[in-house]
């Protein structure tokens, strides 16, 4: 099964120097990847007041979807990925290309939400990482 650590390492490895930074309220700096809920801070990550610069990757850890099969069940996990570009003079093209070319998982088609003056939004790209796990049911 895919683990949060494995996903974080793939994103860090593939995005390398282009991944942005969190600057927390206590002055610490960390790569801008949030796997939510965070193991230590739950959904409150990054905490209020954190300044994010550059590209941020927010990945939501999934609950399983279930399809019952004979002798077992198929579980489907959809990790929802959102890339955010906090630098208005830059974009997410290269980062998206890099992830789509090299992530070793099943992916859905990325949806690009461009900045829009009326909404006041930043550029984001959304896609899902899909994993199917067969869970045999053993009667005892």
């Amino acid at each position, binding site marked *: 099964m895919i683990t949060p650590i494995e996903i974080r390492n793939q994103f860090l490895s593939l995005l390398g120097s282009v991944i942005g930074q969190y600057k927390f309220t206590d002055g610490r700096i960390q790569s801008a990847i949030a796997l939510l809920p965070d193991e230590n801070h739950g959904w409150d990550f990054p905490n209020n007041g954190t300044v*994010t610069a550059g590209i941020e990757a927010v990945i939501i850890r999934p609950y399983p979807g279930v399809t019952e099969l004979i002798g077992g069940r198929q579980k489907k996990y959809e990790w929802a990925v*959102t890339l955010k570009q906090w630098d*208005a003079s830059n974009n997410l093209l290269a980062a998206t290309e890099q992830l789509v070319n090299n992530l070793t998982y099943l992916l859905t088609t990325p*949806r690009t*939400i461009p900045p829009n003056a*009326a*909404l006041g*939004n*930043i550029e984001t790209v*959304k896609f899902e990482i899909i994993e199917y796990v067969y869970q045999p049911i053993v009667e005892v």
Partner: protein
Amino acid sequence: MAKIKIDTKKLNSAIARSFDKTLDRLSESLDYAIDADLYEYPRTTKRKSGEIVSSPRNLVDLGNLRDSKVIARSSDGNAAEFSWDVPYSLAVHEGYTTKTGKDVPPRRWTEKGIEEADPITFFTDALAREL
């Protein structure tokens, strides 16, 4: 051996009428999915229209999104595509993040409209009535 004669002209005509009815049904359902208070929202906001809205809410401010719906038919009439021709339609559908860091959740009116219309069942029922 018994022979079955199929009147393809009549059959195609029944299919076309059923498809038209299904598109009408789906179109109404998609409008309803924009008009109805179906969407959870994390805060109270003031719309351009001046309306103060909380949660759940609909997707109608000035009505531009709802009114931008385009139904494109294929040249043979056997396929159709719905789209909403305003620059922010995808952002509303998929959710977005504001420059100030507020996350706006996805509001997928197409899923709710399709679920409500159930077009496959509607089409097969309509076709059965036509034949």
